[in-house]
């Protein structure tokens, strides 16, 4: 397992329609903040993992463009791709470099500039994120469409309603309104959500995360270095990773993302946690709510709720700030925004700040256990990353 690894610095740009900056300028906003927080200089960094999905944006080799702009050349780097979970993959790459002793300090950078292309082109590229030849070429699935396939099956089986889906949107827009980095700054009502137009039946406009530009960065350090840099490191306690079939037709069913269950169980096992009572161990979670149905599936895949009962947590407001397990107090992908390559790193940034008690008052969770969970999915359960962050140093590695 190697050495302990801690987050020692975090950076997060404003998410939204960032027509005011290009790719490296946007990335630098997050990188500079992370360097300042960690109190390190570019020369101290041994390795930079870089997350960007791209296609819709102009730079095909964004890692190099950003590293040059940020004064990080000639540091070792590569771009990682795990669709919408690329950010978590970049954190894992940086984590592994530090844990294995290949680096003492590593930075994980995520940036996505989706608004460099017109919306139909962006829809096209995300729609191709599955199996291009067999599922896109002939049938033109879109990302809302992929998750709508899960929503249809889930609602039919368990009796969840479109109102239940909208409860996720209303909750997450509310918390986004308290997060100055979020794309959407105003709360929404149930009526606004229910009256919004269908995008991919049964998902409506307010069931969908937006097209977002944004960047995030975290600096990771070995235990020895972390102790020198900060009094309040946040440790990466465990990482679980799994994959799902590219063709959705190859899935067993459409009620759960099997890769997410697998990744969660792996992360829990490594941390020595019992899945049955997982909510007792976690103070706050960021889950991959690219669509409202995805947050409900996440509750069940992570063991926050029994199978078929995820939507009931919302009816009882158990995933609100003072509920059983607060989820997406950042506003989530749904309302904070979802710049694909930055999303997993954004989760790490917000959870680090949550654990350290330094997010905005109205959305600060009560920290008792000192443990937070990030659930980051790429594609429609194609890639799954579940990462546990902890204020206490992991005892055994």
């Amino acid at each position: 397992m190697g050495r302990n690894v801690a987050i020692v610095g975090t950076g997060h740009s404003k998410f939204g329609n960032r027509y005011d900056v290009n790719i490296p300028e946007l990335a630098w906003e997050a990188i500079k903040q992370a360097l300042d927080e960690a109190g390190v200089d570019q020369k101290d960094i041994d390795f930079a993992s870089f997350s960007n999905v791209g296609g819709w944006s102009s730079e095909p080799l964004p890692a190099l463009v950003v590293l040059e702009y940020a004064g990080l050349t000639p540091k070792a780097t590569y771009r990682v791709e795990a669709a919408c979970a690329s950010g978590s993959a970049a954190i894992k790459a940086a984590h592994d470099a530090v844990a294995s002793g290949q680096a003492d300090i590593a930075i994980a950078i995520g940036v996505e500039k989706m608004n460099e292309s017109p919306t139909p082109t962006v829809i096209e590229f995300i729609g191709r994120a599955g199996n291009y030849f067999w599922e896109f070429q002939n049938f033109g699935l879109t990302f809302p469409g992929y998750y709508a396939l899960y929503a249809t099956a889930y609602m039919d089986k368990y009796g969840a309603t479109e109102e239940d889906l909208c409860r996720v949107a209303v909750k997450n827009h509310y918390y986004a309104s308290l997060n100055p980095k979020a794309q959407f700054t105003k709360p929404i009502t149930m009526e606004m959500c229910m009256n919004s137009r269908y995008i991919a039946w049964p998902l409506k406009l307010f069931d969908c995360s937006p097209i977002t530009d944004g960047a995030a960065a975290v600096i990771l350090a070995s235990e020895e270095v972390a102790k020198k840099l900060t009094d309040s490191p946040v440790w990466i306690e465990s990482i679980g990773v799994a994959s799902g079939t590219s063709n959705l037709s190859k899935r067993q069913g459409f009620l759960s993302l099997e890769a997410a269950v697998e990744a969660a169980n792996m992360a829990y096992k490594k941390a020595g946690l019992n899945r049955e009572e997982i909510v007792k161990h976690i103070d706050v979670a960021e889950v991959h709510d690219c669509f409202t149905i995805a947050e409900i599936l996440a509750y069940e895949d992570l063991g926050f709720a029994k199978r078929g009962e995820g939507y009931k947590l919302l009816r009882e407001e158990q995933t609100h700030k003072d509920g059983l397990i607060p989820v997406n107090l950042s506003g989530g992908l749904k309302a904070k925004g979802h710049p694909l390559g930055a999303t997993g790193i954004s989760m790490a940034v917000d959870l680090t700040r949550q654990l350290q008690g330094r997010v905005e008052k109205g959305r600060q969770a009560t920290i008792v256990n000192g443990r937070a969970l990030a659930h980051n999915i790429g594609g429609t359960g194609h890639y799954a990353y579940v990462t546990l962050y902890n204020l206490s140093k992991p005892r055994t590695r």
Partner: protein
Amino acid sequence: MSNQREQADMFLRQMEGFANEMKKAVGTPIIPEPKSGSQLWYDQREIKLKFLISVEKIKKFFHEGLAEGKLLATRCKKCGRKYFPPQVDCPYCKTSEMEWVELPRRGHLMTYTIIYVKPYSFGHYPDYTVGIAKLEDGTQVTAWVRETDPKKLKVGMPVRVEIVKREPEGYFTYELVPETEESQ
């Protein structure tokens, strides 16, 4: 009313028009983004993205399958696993000894969605339904479903596979058709 693809083309043509005027006026293709006013460089390069994808090893699926009105899968001669979409290698047996088999036509709908907001390259079609059906032999197939009224669609409803020509492109593909009482 124009379709989504025409609307997208029109949007870009408008931007290009502005950029061309700016080039004439000040020599740079820089235009203001309508909402924020931020200055944007209108890309002076353009590519066409068309892939040439090998179907050499699965050409039977098209020539002897779809063109003759059949939906084919492959089956591993060793373990009997069926592959749809067809694979020419069985990774479990590590063999390429496969045979072509025809899939049953009847099954039921596992799930579906109706696509209203379309990708650029599908923007010329009317709204379409995509579903996943489980056929009688357990094989699962993703395809368009010939019904776009959500009230007439139901998880578990019987469907049959039909080989159809996709228009306006004019190529063979397969579609799921809800079974009505008359057709059964």
